[in-house]
């Protein structure tokens, strides 16, 4: 069993660390700073923290003004508000003029749990990646979150980072290592966590640890599954994906997001234009879902490692 940690805690800590060295970082929140952990930055740097109250649209456009004055604004709230509630503001004030704003949203997906569908966000990847100039990152755990937040500062332009509410199993070793090896978080990159010849599991966020579990379960049945942590949805790692498709001839995508327009869709876009192979998409099957505990929901809505195992077997059967 892996240890667990909050990705939003990692965000809160990293923000402070970055805030110490990069004086141009400012942080904006919309009355959710206790939940998003930006309140920690606010306590450390009160002058550089702005709480806009429950007014996401205003916050988003204000970030544009701060960015065009040389600041690096981090804008945080829950994913459903960070994206859909201020979408037109993000589009026109920020993405269109390619301003240096980082949006870090917590409480994505259905693992939000008891608050229910009004507070889930199963569409943010789809809607953010639909806009030009937009980088979309989905870290898999707390360690990768730190790496993603840091990488976002070194990249000029709008970046959307998708985090979760609950603690997630920690996959990477401290300092962003995998099995001892130091990794580099690269916008447009990915991590191949496991090699395998029969099928490739392409996962993001909370589903990465589940994909690893699925790969182990498959291995016990003699099926060798490669596992890719696709932390960068846009830009997307075309090279690694096409190579994986070529080698394994079958892909399963795993995302805590609607299967319409999300990670599966982004991967499919690449493969049909390069190496069209059979795919199965594990994700939320176009439903708003309901309130419940995280585990109840992930099980009922088909996001367990068992669901991945079954999808892998289905897709392998479809290989030509």
């Amino acid at each position: 069993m892996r240890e667990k940690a909050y990705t939003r805690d990692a965000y809160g800590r990293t923000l402070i660390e970055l805030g110490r060295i990069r004086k141009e970082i400012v942080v904006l929140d919309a009355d959710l700073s206790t939940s998003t952990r930006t309140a920690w930055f606010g306590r450390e740097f009160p002058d550089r923290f702005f709480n806009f109250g429950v007014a996401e649209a205003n916050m988003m456009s204000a970030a544009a003004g701060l960015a065009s004055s040389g600041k690096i604004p981090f804008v945080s709230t829950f994913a459903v508000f960070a994206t859909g509630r201020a979408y037109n503001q993000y589009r026109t004030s920020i993405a269109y003029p390619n301003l240096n704003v980082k949006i870090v949203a917590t409480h994505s997906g259905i693992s939000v749990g008891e608050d229910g569908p009004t507070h889930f966000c199963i569409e943010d990847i789809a809607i953010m990646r639909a806009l030009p100039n937009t980088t979309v990152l989905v870290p898999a755990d707390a360690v990768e979150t730190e790496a993603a937040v840091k990488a976002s500062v070194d990249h000029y332009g709008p970046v959307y980072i998708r985090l979760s509410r609950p603690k997630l199993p920690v996959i990477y070793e401290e300092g962003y290592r995998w099995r001892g090896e130091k990794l580099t978080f690269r916008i447009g990159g990915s991590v191949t966590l496991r090699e395998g010849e029969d099928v490739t599991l392409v996962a993001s966020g909370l589903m990465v640890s589940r994909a690893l579990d699925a790969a182990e379960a498959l291995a016990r049945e003699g099926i060798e599954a490669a596992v890719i942590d696709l932390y960068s949805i846009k830009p997307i790692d075309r090279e690694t994906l096409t190579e994986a498709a070529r080698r394994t001839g079958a892909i399963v995508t795993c995302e805590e997001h609607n299967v319409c327009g999300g990670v599966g869709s982004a991967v499919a876009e690449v493969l049909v234009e390069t190496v069209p192979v059979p795919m199965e998409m594990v994700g939320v099957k176009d439903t708003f879902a309901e309130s419940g505990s995280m585990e109840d929901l992930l099980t009922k809505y088909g996001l367990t490692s068992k669901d991945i195992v079954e999808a892998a077997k289905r897709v392998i059967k479809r290989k030509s």
Partner: protein
Amino acid sequence: MKTVLSLELSLINYSVKGLGYGANLLMVRLGCKGEGEVFHSDELVARLRRIALQLRRDVLKMTTKAGSGHPGGSLSAADIITALYFHHLRHDPKNPKWEDRDRFILSKGHSCPVLYAALARCGYFPVEELWRLRKIGSMLQGHPDMLKTPGVEASTGNLGQGLSIGIGMALAARLDGKDYRVYVMLGDGELDEGQVWEAAMAASHFRLNNITAIVDYNGLQLDGFTEDIMSLEPLAEKWRAFGWHTIEIDGHNMRQILDALDMAVMVKGKPTAIIAHTVKGKGVSFMENRVEFHGKALTEEQLRKALEELRWEG
């Protein structure tokens, strides 16, 4: 005699609060509406206060049972919700889709525990459902879901949308020549949302006098005091400048609540806003005015203590 006295007391009360409501009340007294309709019996008030207590108990029990939820803003809204569902609203729990019913929208959807308690205690569904709040398969979602819960009029939980939804209902009433009324409860933090002011502007532009907005002015939002996070004052002037007849009351004084709701019915040609001064966590000493109970359920131990405080003392 007793009525007159209580009336005088009410007036004094309003004056003491200094909320400019007395003048209005006087006007009413001068003939616009019969006393009986405007002023309410001690028996009624006592009955409602007792029910409000019950709803508060329900709120705390169901959220603790669920292990999550928003008790603070449920308690601040409890007296108003009680006045609406157990006296003021024209509705029929046996026929939730009755066309002529008044509509209530809880725009501050996170406070649904108190709405669910009211609906259950009214008879929309069995009280036992309350204990399945937020569990998978339950009819009681973490935020109001109009498809799953009988009596819930709108799906809310993303703040700022309820007043707009209410405008749609009020326009429909006018179009259909129906005299039902629409009530929308908003949080004070929720008023930060520009959509609320879009709706405020539109409701007065459309001259909707069949809609009443009730602001649960408990002075707290999620991150702290509204005064610190995003100050709202002068709030009544804002609503007035947006064309609303505006009344300020003590949102825990049942008589003032009932009077204000009646008053709103009488206003012609414009919508009415009731700014209800409330206390978040009202009724439980250690919850009152404490931001940490915005979105956290009580522990079993805290619940026990709270329920001890929430006893009927007449």
